């Protein structure tokens, strides 16, 4: 009986502690800076084209084969604006299959892909298969948010 009472005292004490639960859709804990969501493609501001050349190395190493990439000749190179001879033509990532392992980031030879904080992407096809402009936007949004504080500060409990 004493053991049960000891447990009761413990639960009684805990009753007066600050709760640690966060009411999720209304308030959110901030993501860690290193958080790996889904990958996005980086835009080369200086030239005005993606860093990605469509070399397909990420596609080859993707463990779930969720990417599809094609390459084309860079029209800007012909015009003398860019040094990249080849550029990405299409780039799709099936987010419903992506496991956010960041292997694509690791193998990329041009640092053209990065893990954004995008993670709430549940939906139907084809919403879960972003194409090149959407992937570029994901990275752009991520970079725009990054320096800023999260919308709502967490309670200092965890």
């Amino acid at each position, binding site marked *: 009986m004493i*053991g049960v009472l000891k*447990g009761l005292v413990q639960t009684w004490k*805990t009753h007066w502690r600050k709760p640690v639960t966060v009411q999720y859709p209304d308030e959110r804990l901030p993501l*860690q*800076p*290193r958080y*790996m969501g889904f990958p996005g493609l980086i835009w080369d501001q200086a030239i005005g084209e993606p860093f990605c050349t469509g070399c397909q190395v990420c596609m080859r190493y993707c463990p779930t084969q969720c990417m599809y990439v094609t390459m084309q000749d860079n029209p800007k190179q012909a015009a003398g604006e860019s040094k990249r001879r080849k550029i990405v033509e299409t780039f799709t990532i099936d987010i419903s299959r992506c496991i956010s392992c*960041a*292997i694509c980031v690791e*193998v990329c030879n041009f640092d053209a892909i990065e893990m954004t904080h995008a993670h709430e992407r549940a939906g139907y096809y084809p919403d879960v298969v972003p194409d090149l402009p959407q992937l570029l936007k994901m990275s752009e949004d991520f970079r725009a948010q990054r320096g800023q504080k999260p919308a709502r500060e967490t309670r200092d409990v965890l």
Partner: protein
Amino acid sequence: MITERRLDTVDMHINVGPQHPATHGVFRMVLRVDGERIVDCVPYIGYLHRGFEKLAENEEFQEVIIHLDRTDYIAQFNNEFCYLMAVEKLLGVKPPERAEYARIILAELNRIVSHLMFYGAFGGDAGAITPFLYAFRERERLQRLFESVSGARLMHFYFRAGGLKEDLPEGFLEEVRRILPVLKQGIDECDTLLTENEVFLSRTVGIGAISAQEAIDYGCTGPILRACGVREDVRRSDPYSLYPTLDFDVPVGKKGDTFDRYLVRVQEMRESIRIVEQCLDRIPEGPFRTPIPRYPHYRVDPGEVYVHTENPRGDYGIYLISRGGVQPFRVKLRSPCFCNLMALPAMLRDAYVADAVMVLGSLDIVLGEVDR
């Protein structure tokens, strides 16, 4: 005249799982019962088989790590640790000291996470919901730490051949230092909640006991074996990494019953905290990865190696064969859960049906690792 009339009874079969909430995953066992007593138990596994060993043969050494995360999905850092020690042995590189300490810190914290998970689920098996909430409150602190380190809560993919993916984030060690006393208090709270509780004791003491010899014969390792009173821990018996320099005890039980398995794990959490504290004092500044040529597509010389480590569930071994090149020729996983699970029929013999779930819970199986 009184004639003795006996009822003819037939043993009944009860199917538990694979979609049973108390089986901790997709595990199925068929119990043969005589009234309330279990006569025999046949475990069926393989519902979570993903062919990890075959997958590993078609991928580069680096990529295999993500599948290791998914074998024992509650102790990911420990699995990566084991595999990468094997790769490093073949490569002939040694990770820098900072990486070694960081690995031990993360692996020991992950052991606490795993044991807290066990604690919560075990309380739930006994019919107590409150311990689950307590354990997960404590576990969440560590999960957030892991997220800050690796960017993922569960599938970390953080250890690399020759060290770590990137350096520990700024302020991580201070954060661990801040959290450890809180965690200690949390473990003590969990302890008071369940360990002396009479209802819990009556459900666990003397249930599912096996002798030390039997446990050794079945190939049990980890807390299952230690609960029988055998002081066997890979960190002590076959020390790896920097464990020989660290000071910690190996808690053992006496009777090898369900309660002893529980108690050994609770004590192990405290020992893990001791190890982390020592590592925090010693971890130096410096590089976090030894450079390897052609990283991450490094080539490994032909050879074979067996490395085993002490996972939260026991002796986790990787047998790695390389025939040169970027892909492993064979990766064999010695899964502790699988061996521990094979002792289940011996533990359940002559137990009550109601205790079957408790005994299964005390094994702390992770089906991802059993079926791989």
